Structures are given as structure tokens and as C-alpha cells.
């Protein structure tokens, strides 16, 4: 009986509709009543925990497929930079390796786990993705500058070290042992602030080199440049997940003090780097002095010599890895939001990979005090 069947279908549809309406009304009533307890003291139901965890695991696995291949993660400079950031950014919740989790933090739901286990289970790409994007419903934040995958890789490199016990080495890696035994006491020659004591965990000071080649040397930069940079970090126009939180916490006076301190530091002995080969340095010197006019690359020294404008940085003696990293960052569009950055972006995009390494090696090979002259002789043209 076709009509009969039809009617049966109709009845079923009606029943389903009524049930759906009641269900919706019930849920609305439940939510509105506030009966559900959101207290972090109450564990999730087992099913909720399972659901959230599975979802988290699967999601990380799927999305990390699209992460690009990592740089070599066993690079000590990368690990050290990651460790130094871990100390400031991650340890408050996840605790230093080997130390128990802070009692306040462990009241979170879910509590931040000790990282050795999860990192051992996950691939580097998964760790990277998690650090970069954070995790919903856990309190794990995303990296504050999404453009800075290079920084995230540094932290990833450090986290990869967890499975082998890093606790013993942690203070050295993260630069905690560079700090004076008691903060508040004048750490360096003469003046100093709480802020500065944190700076030297990574950067150079009168006696020490930077903790990692990926960290810029600041001694001898002009106050104009340093102040501009700190302001750009604080405003987020120069993106960095490592520097932004630090710069944001500084007030104007502290910034001025810091800039003055580093500008005063001036000359310091040549960093004891392993010397890259002389040919590379020579190629870099030629590029820095003459540019590569065929490809529209102006000489670096036109802006980075002794007679530069005050807000331009000096490059002599700068760490090669830092320079390389920044030029790559420019090429990938990670530094195009400030006026100064836009100028350099145009130039950086015209450099080849080899030119970047050459010119970085050249500047790194110079004594930091080198007063570079701008190129004056017109280059040979026909």
C-alpha cells in the first residue's frame, strides 16, 4: 500500500521532529540552569577525556603533515637558543627539567605535563606544530609571532633533547648560570637593572659572548638603533616570539638605560668563532663593498658603514648565523612591517643563498670595532 507506507514515513518524521525539539529544549534548559560544574577540581568524564585526547592527537598528526622539513635540530646554537627561551617562556608552567611542576600550575585542568614523555612520542614536526599553534582546551598558548617558524624550531630543537636527560646541562644551556648569584646586586660594571640581568642570559655583555650564534651581539650598537628595535619588538611590528614578551615588559626608562649600556660597551675582542674559509669572506667583502649591480643588490656598506644614519645597525663582528637567519626572514616576508624593514626587504630578496652566507661570513669575520668606510670609488663600468 503506497499511501499507507507514505503515511508511516510521515508519522516517523513527525516523531523524530518532536523528539528533536524536546532534546533541544532540554539542552537549553541544562545550559541555562548552570547545573554543570566547570570547576577545575572536577575531572572530566572518562569519555570526555578520551575524546579530547584523541582529537588532540589526531589533529596534531594531521596538521603537522603540512609542516615544512626542519632545519638540522642537533645544532647546539639552535638548542641553546631554545633552552634560553624555555627558561623564560615555558618553565613557569612546565618547570625546568628535573624539577617538579609548580604547585599552583598543577591545579590547571589538564595540568601541564612534564614534557619528556610526549616529546619522545611525537615527531619533530608534531612538536613544532604544537609549540607554534598551541592547543585548544588545555591552556597551551600559541607562539606569539606566527611568522617566526625559525624561533619555534629552536625551541623544538631543545625539546628534542628532553628524552635524554638534560637536567644536568640545563643551567648552562639556558644561560641561567650566566646570571649573577643574587639578582639586584649590580651585575655588570657600574649600573644595571633587573631587566639587564635577564638580557645577559642570551646576549653579550662586557665579558661574555652571546649564548648562541643565533643571538645578536649588541655591544657597540647605537642607542638610536637599539631603542628603535626595542620599540618595534614591544609594538609587535618586528615579530619575535622570544623578544616581544621581553620588550613589552620594559618601560621607556629601562629601554633607554639598556640602550645606553650597550652603546657604551663598545669594542671588545674578536669573537672566537671558528673561521670560515677565506674565499667566502673575500666574496662577502666584494659584495659588501661593491654590491651586485647586475641583480640590483646595492653595496651593504652604503648603509652599514661608519657614516651610516644613526638608526641603522652596525654589522661588523655580528654573529654570522644571526645575520643569515635575519636575511632569510626578510626573504620570506617576516620583517616587512616596519619602515626600516621594508627597505632591507627589497634588498634581501635579491640575494642568493650563497650571497647571504658570504656576506654574513664577511661581517662576522670583522673585528666589532672596525670603522668601515662606505664605498666611494665608482666601480668599473663600461
Amino acid at each position, binding site marked *: 500500500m503506497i499511501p499507507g507506507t507514505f503515511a508511516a514515513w510521515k508519522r516517523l518524521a513527525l516523531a523524530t521532529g518532536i523528539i528533536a525539539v524536546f532534546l533541544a529544549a532540554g539542552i537549553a534548559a541544562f545550559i541555562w540552569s548552570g547545573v554543570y560544574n566547570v570547576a577545575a577540581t572536577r575531572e572530566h568524564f572518562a569519555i570526555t577525556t578520551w575524546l579530547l585526547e584523541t582529537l588532540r592527537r589526531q589533529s596534531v598528526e594531521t596538521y603537522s603533515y603540512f609542516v615544512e622539513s626542519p632545519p638540522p635540530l642537533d645544532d647546539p646554537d639552535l638548542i641553546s637558543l631554545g633552552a634560553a627561551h624555555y627558561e623564560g617562556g615555558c618553565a613557569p608552567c612546565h618547570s625546568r627539567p628535573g624539577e617538579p611542576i609548580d604547585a599552583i600550575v598543577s591545579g590547571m585542568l589538564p595540568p601541564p605535563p612534564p614534557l619528556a614523555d610526549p616529546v619522545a612520542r611525537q615527531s619533530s614536526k608534531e612538536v613544532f606544530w604544537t609549540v607554534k599553534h598551541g592547543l585548544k582546551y588545555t591552556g597551551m598558548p600559541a607562539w606569539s609571532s606566527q611568522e617566526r617558524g625559525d624561533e619555534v624550531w629552536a625551541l623544538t630543537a631543545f625539546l628534542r633533547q628532553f628524552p635524554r636527560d638534560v637536567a644536568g646541562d640545563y643551567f648552562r644551556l639556558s644561560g641561567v648560570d650566566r646570571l649573577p648569584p643574587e639578582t639586584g646586586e649590580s651585575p655588570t660594571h657600574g649600573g644595571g637593572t633587573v631587566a639587564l640581568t635577564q638580557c645577559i642570559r642570551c646576549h653579550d655583555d662586557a665579558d661574555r659572548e652571546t649564548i648562541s650564534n643565533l643571538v645578536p651581539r649588541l655591544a657597540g650598537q647605537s642607542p638610536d638603533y637599539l631603542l628603535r628595535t626595542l620599540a618595534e619588538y614591544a609594538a609587535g611590528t618586528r615579530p619575535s616570539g622570544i623578544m616581544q614578551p621581553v620588550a613589552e615588559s620594559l618601560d621607556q626608562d629601562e629601554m633607554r638605560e639598556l640602550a645606553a649600556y650597550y652603546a657604551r660597551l663598545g669594542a671588545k675582542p674578536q669573537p672566537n668563532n671558528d673561521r670560515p674559509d677565506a674565499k667566502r669572506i673575500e666574496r662577502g667583502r666584494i659584495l659588501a663593498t661593491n654590491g651586485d649591480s647586475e641583480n640590483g643588490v646595492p*653595496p651593504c656598506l652604503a648603509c652599514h658603514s661608519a657614516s651610516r*644614519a644613526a638608526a641603522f645597525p652596525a654589522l661588523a663582528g655580528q654573529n654570522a648565523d644571526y645575520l643569515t637567519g635575519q636575511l632569510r626572514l626578510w626573504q620570506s616576508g617576516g620583517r616587512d612591517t616596519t619602515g626600516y624593514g621594508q627597505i632591507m626587504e627589497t634588498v634581501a630578496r635579491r640575494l642568493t643563498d650563497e650571497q647571504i652566507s658570504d656576506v654574513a661570513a664577511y661581517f662576522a669575520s670583522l673585528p666589532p670595532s672596525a670603522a668601515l668606510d662606505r664605498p666611494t670609488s665608482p666601480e668599473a663600468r663600461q
Partner: protein
Amino acid sequence: MMRCCFVWPAAAILLFVVSGCAGVQSALDPTGAEAERINTLSWVLIIFCTAVFIITAIIASVALFANERWRQQLAGERLVIGAGLIFPAVTLTFLLAYGIFVLGMGGGSADTSDGLRISVVGERWWWRVIYRDENGRRIESANELRIPVGRPVKIDLTSADVIHSFWVPKLAGKLDMIPGRTNTLTLDVTSPGVSRGQCAEYCGGAHALMSFFVIAMPEKDFAAWLADEAKDAHQPTDELETRGQALFIASGCGACHTVRGTAATGAIGPDLTHVGSRHSLAAATLPNNAEAFARWIRDGQHIKPENLMPPYPIFSDEELASLSSYLAQLR
């Protein structure tokens, strides 16, 4: 049908008349020997083609609308062979001969014994102009070409990057600038004056904004101008301009631009030694005045998108004012 067949050619002729032939970039208003020859050729062609078109239209109208007797006159292979084969074969032979004859008159016998040689290099998206005078002195300029009137001048055309095409419609037809090749064009200007040229081969990005002016000058004026052009740049006189010069040097402008007589010796961008004396800025995109300089420095990417100069948003208003007044006095 019939009506429109006549309306269109008439409208065409009207268009030509009404719109006139004036224009600083018009091939119909020639002041150069080659452009004049081509102009004559153009009119011969236009008249010939108009005539052929009208006759064809008349024949077609007869075929369509005329009475049986007239139509039967056209209804055979005779028409096809006569009008479709013999007529074009004969007339086109004459036209071809004329065209080849005009082609053969090209080149000219430019007298280069006085030693003046001019090269123009196409760059994205501007023109590098290099004069070499009889002393072998190399004088570089940009986006403006000055030539003497009344004698043929040979111009070497090359490209620094992609294919461009050098075209000054009032003076001569276009000639491409091709990487790896040097083409030589003879310009023989008959009367002094300003004409405008433009890149005629699509060269990407700001192709539309790659123009220049050609200024044809009497021989004597030209010599004087060239002597002036060979000199170093004016030194700034007042305080504003001096500050501008200092800013120009310290901000790295000299990495790409040359201002002869100063520390600025860059070779990537246009030579600015006498930029203030040119007719235009940014390859005939902006007028030449201090305000335009300021606009260009601050907003170049908006005025001429994709141009290769880095944006310079770092200057304050006062700094811009001093920079642009320094540049404007480089006359």
C-alpha cells in the same frame, strides 16, 4: 547593409579629421626623417585600403541588392579570378615594392666622426642614457634623451634585464632592446622640440609607466647642454639643502644612485647628478618638482607599483622636505 557600408568609411575619415593629428607621442605628427617617410607610406596605405574597401562594398551591395541582370554580371569565376587574384597580385606587388623601397631608405649615413655616441639601456622600468663625447668622456643620465637637430644620430639600444622596445613615434618607428644584442637606431630630427617616447614591448610590472622625453635642440644649444651635463653636481647652498644632502648620503641613497662629485656612486638606479633639470621624474610618470620628489620617496610603490626602488617610509616630514629640496636643486 548598403547604408552602413558607406557610413563606416565616412565615419572613419571624420574621426581622423576631428581628432586631429597633434600629440607629443603621435606617429601622425612626425618631426623625424624616418617617421616622416612612414607617415607618407601610412597615408598611401590608408587611402588605398579605403578605396579597396569601398569598391568591395559596392560590389557586395550589387550582389546583394541589384537586379538580376547586374547580379548575373558578377556571378562567375571571372569575378573571383579578376578581383580576388589578379587585382591583389598586381596592386600588392606595387605596394610591396614601395614598402621595401621605404625600408631601404632607413639607416641613414650618420656621421659619427664627431665622436658623439649615445646608448640607451632599457631597465625595469626606466631608461639609462649614456652619452660619450668626442673626448671619450662618459656622461650618464636617465629617462630623458637630448639630441641635436639636423643631423642623423645613431643610438645603441641594449637591455639590462628583459626585452624592452624603444619607441618615439614622432621621430621613428620602434626598435626592440633585447638582452645579449645591440640594435642601432638612427634618429634624424628635422625640427627642435619635445617628443615623448614609451616602452613598446611588454616588460612586466610597470611597463605602462616606462616613458621618457626626447628633446631635440639646435646644434649649438646641444653642445652647451652636453658640456653642462658633463659637470659635477651643484653643491647645495642653503642649510635645508645641505641637510638634505647629508641625509641622502647617510640613508644609503648613494648605494643605488650616483650624484657626481659626492660620495653617492651607486650604479643600480638612475643617475641623479642633474635630475632637477629633467622634464619628468620616474620615467615620465611625475612632473619634476620638489613635491614630486617627496611623494616619490615616500610613496613610490603606489605611484609606480612594483618599481625596484625600496620604499622609504622612514623619513619625517622635515627630513623629506630637506631631501627633496636637495634633489630639486641638482639642476
